[in-house]
C-alpha cells in the first residue's frame, strides 16, 4: 500500500520548495513531486510597461546566486528585440562576468552539498563550518575561490552581487589596464584552486555513491547504484555562455518549446500517511496534513518536444562533449568538471579584451515590438528570456528559468529511490527556486501562442 511522506521545506538550496513522495512499503519512491512553494513575485507581469533598461535590473534580483544569468539574458533579450549588436569588448566583459559568477556558484554549491557526504575513509559526515581539519582548509579554499569569482565579477560588472555595469547596448564602462592585470592575477590563482577543489569534490562524491549504505538522521539507507537516473534527455545552448535570436545559428528553438501547468504533471490532493520525526532536522510533515502539489506548486512545467528535460552542467557536457555518466553522481561530477574552464576561458577572454575599446553600441534603437530571445547558460542550466520592446517600453517579457525546467525532470528522477535520499537527488540539480518561480505559463493553445510570439 502506498504511503505519502512530505519533506517541507527542503534545505541546502536556494529558495523554498517541498517534496511530496508516494512510497511503497520498502520506502522506495513510486512517484515523487518536487515543487516550488516560493511566492510568485511576478517579474514577467510587472515588466510590462517598464523600460528595457530597468527590467533586466529587476530580473537580476530574481536570484542572488545567479543574478548574472538573469541580468545578461534579460539585457540580451532586450537587445535581440531592438536588434542591437554590442561591441566585442562589451561581449568579452560579459563573458568574463559569466565565468566569474559560475566559479563562485559552483563553490557555493559545494558548501551546500558537503553535509551529505563523508570524509573519505571515515564514517564522519562533512560539516563545512567545522574549524577542524581537513575540512577547515577545504572551507577556506572554497571561500577563496568564491572571493576570486566575486571580485573578478565585481570589476567587470561594477558591483556584486547584482551587476551594475551592464546596460542595453553593452556596458557603461570598460575596465582599465590595471583592472585587467588584477583580473589576470586572480584568474591564475583561481585556476590552481579550481583544480584542487574539483579533484577533492569528485573524490568525495565518488566515495559517497560507492557506499552500500548511507546515514540519514540515524537511519541506515541503502544507496542505489542508479540514484537519480532518468531518461528525460538534456537541453543546453552553449558550452558556457548562451545564444540569442540575433545569432546566425541560434541553438534554441522556440517552436519546440511548450508549457503546461502543474495540473498536467503533478499529483492532486493527498494526505500525509507517513511521518518520520528522525528526518534531519525537525522531521517530515505531520501525519494527516493535507497536501496538493497541483494547486500549491508555484511554477509551471516547461517542456522541449513535449517532455521535461534536464538543464545544467551535465546537460552542457552531454550536449557538447557526449558526457555519459547518469544519475545524481554524474550530475554533481559534471558540475565540478566545469570549474577549470571558468578560469581557462576567462583568461582567454582577458587576452582578447582591449581596455581602450568602446563598450557601448553607437546606436541603440527604441524597438519596434519584434520578438527577441536570449539564452544564458546559468550555473544551473539554460535560462531563456523572451522580450518584445516597442518605443523603449517592454510589451512582453518571459523567463524560462533553469530550475523550472528541472522541477519535473527531477520529479521523474525520484522514482526508484529510497525516500530519505530524495533531497540528495534534488540537490544534484543545484536548485534555485526563487528563480524558478517566475515562469509564465502559456495555455493549451500553446502552438498558436508560440507562433504569435515568433511573429
Amino acid at each position, binding site marked *: 500500500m502506498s504511503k505519502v511522506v512530505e519533506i517541507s521545506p527542503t534545505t541546502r538550496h536556494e529558495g523554498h520548495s517541498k517534496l511530496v513522495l508516494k512510497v511503497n512499503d520498502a520506502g522506495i519512491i513510486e512517484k515523487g513531486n518536487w515543487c516550488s512553494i516560493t511566492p510568485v513575485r511576478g517579474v514577467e507581469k510587472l515588466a510590462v510597461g517598464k523600460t528595457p533598461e530597468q527590467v533586466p535590473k529587476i530580473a537580476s534580483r530574481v536570484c542572488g546566486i545567479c543574478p548574472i544569468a538573469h541580468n545578461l539574458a534579460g539585457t540580451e533579450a532586450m537587445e535581440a528585440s531592438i536588434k542591437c549588436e554590442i561591441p566585442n569588448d562589451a561581449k568579452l566583459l560579459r563573458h568574463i562576468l559569466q565565468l566569474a559568477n559560475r566559479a563562485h556558484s559552483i563553490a557555493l554549491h559545494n558548501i551546500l552539498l558537503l553535509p551529505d557526504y563523508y570524509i573519505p575513509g571515515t564514517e564522519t559526515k562533512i560539516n563545512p563550518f567545522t574549524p577542524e581539519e581537513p575540512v577547515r582548509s577545504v572551507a577556506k579554499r572554497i571561500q577563496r575561490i568564491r572571493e576570486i569569482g566575486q571580485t573578478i565579477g*565585481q570589476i567587470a560588472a*561594477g*558591483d556584486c552581487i547584482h551587476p551594475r555595469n551592464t546596460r542595453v547596448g553593452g556596458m557603461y*564602462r570598460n575596465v582599465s589596464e590595471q*583592472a585587467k592585470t588584477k583580473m589576470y592575477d586572480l584568474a591564475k590563482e583561481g585556476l590552481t584552486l579550481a583544480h584542487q577543489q574539483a579533484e577533492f569534490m569528485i573524490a568525495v562524491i565518488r566515495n559517497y555513491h560507492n557506499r552500500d549504505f548511507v546515514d540519514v538522521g540515524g537511519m541506515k539507507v541503502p544507496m542505489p547504484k542508479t540514484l537519480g537516473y532518468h531518461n528525460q534527455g538534456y537541453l543546453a545552448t552553449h558550452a558556457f555562455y548562451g545564444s540569442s535570436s540575433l545569432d546566425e545559428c541560434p541553438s534554441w528553438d522556440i517552436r519546440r518549446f511548450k508549457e503546461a501547468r502543474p495540473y498536467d504533471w503533478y499529483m492532486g490532493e493527498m494526505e500525509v500517511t507517513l511521518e518520520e520525526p528522525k528526518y534531519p532536522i525537525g522531521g517530515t510533515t505531520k501525519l494527516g496534513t493535507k497536501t496538493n502539489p497541483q494547486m500549491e506548486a508555484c511554477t509551471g512545467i516547461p517542456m522541449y518536444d513535449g517532455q521535461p528535460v534536464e538543464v545544467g552542467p551535465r546537460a552542457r557536457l552531454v550536449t557538447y562533449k557526449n558526457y555519459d555518466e547518469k544519475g545524481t553522481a554524474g550530475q554533481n561530477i559534471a558540475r565540478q568538471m566545469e570549474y577549470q574552464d571558468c578560469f581557462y576561458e576567462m583568461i582567454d577572454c582577458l587576452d582578447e579584451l582591449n581596455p581602450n575599446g568602446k563598450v557601448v553600441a553607437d546606436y541603440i534603437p527604441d524597438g519596434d515590438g519584434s520578438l527577441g530571445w536570449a539564452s544564458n547558460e546559468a550555473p544551473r542550466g539554460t535560462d531563456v528570456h523572451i522580450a518584445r520592446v516597442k518605443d523603449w517600453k517592454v510589451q512582453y517579457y518571459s523567463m524560462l528559468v533553469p530550475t523550472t525546467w528541472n522541477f519535473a525532470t527531477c520529479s521523474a528522477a525520484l522514482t526508484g529511490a529510497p525516500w530519505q535520499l530524495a533531497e540528495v537527488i534534488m540537490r544534484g540539480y543545484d536548485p534555485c527556486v526563487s528563480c524558478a518561480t517566475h515562469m509564465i505559463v502559456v495555455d493549451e493553445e500553446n502552438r498558436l501562442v508560440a507562433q504569435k510570439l515568433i511573429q
Partner: protein
Amino acid sequence: MGAELGKYKSCVSARTTDKEILKFSQDGGIVTSLFGFALDTGIIDGAIVAANKEFYEKNPSKCILDNSNFEMIEPWRPIPAVVNTKAELLAAAGTKYNISPNVALLKEATRAFGLDKIGIVGTPCQMQAVRKAQLYPIGFRDVGASIALAVGIFCMENFPYQGILQLVEDHAAMKLDAVKKMEIGKGKFWVYGKRGQVVSLPLKVTHKYEQPGCHVCLDYVANLGDISTGSVGSPDGWSTVFVRSKIGDSVWAKAMAAGVFETQPIEKVKPGLELVTKLANEKITKNKKTLEGRATFGVGKALRNPYI
C-alpha cells in the same frame, strides 16, 4: 587644541620641494605632492581628484560618466577623475571653488579602475562621507579597507558652478577662460588672469553664491582626513598641514623622510594656528545658528536635522 580643529597628532606649515609642482599648485602643493609620492612608492595605486575640462577631453574614460559632461564642458568646472601618474596629477592640480562630487567615483575606483589602494582628496563633508562609507558601507561593498589615503582640504563653504561663473564674469568682469587661478584669502576672493591681471572681491560679495547645504557644516579643517591641509594659517606659498590618523602619520613620516616637503613649525609662522582656530570657530558658530534656526524655520514646523 579645542575641538574646532579636530583630533590631530601633529601640525606643521609645509611646502613641496618639487619646483614643478609649485608652478601648478594652489599653495604649498601638498595634495599633489602627497599623491605623487604615494603613487611613486605604491602607497596608493590611484587617486580620485577634481580634474578639469582639459583633462576630460584627453582622458574621458578616467572621469565620472554624467550627462553634464559632454563636448560643451565649461571652463573651471571640476570633474571627478581617477589619476594614476604624476603628469595626470599636475594636469588636475589647483583648487576649483565649486562642487566636485569626488565620492561618486569611490566605488568605481575599485571596480572598473581596479584599484586596491585608493587616494581621495575632498572637502570636510566629503571626508565625512568617506568615513561614513567605511563604518556604514551600505552601498560601498569592498571599498572601506581599500581607502589608503584620504586628504581633506580646509573649507569655509563651497559654491555651485553658476556662483563662481557670476563672481568671475559679473563681479570681477573677467572671462572664466582667461582665469589662471582663484584664491580665497586675507578676507577676499582673488581672481588671477592669465595675462597677469589681479582682481579681488570682498568676501561679502560671495556670500549670496554659497551652496546652502554648506550652512549646516560644523567642520572647517576636515577633521576626518588622514591628513588635512589648507592655506589658512601659513604664509603665502605654504600650507598648514594637520596629520591626524595612523595612516596619515605613516604616510607623512615617509614623505618627510624622502624629502618631499620642507616644513616650519606652525607656532613659528604668521598668521599661525590662531587664525585657523578663529575661522573654524566663526564657521562653527555661524552654522550652529543656522542649524538652530532650522528647528523653528516655519510656524510650528521645523526643517529636518540630519545630525543624530
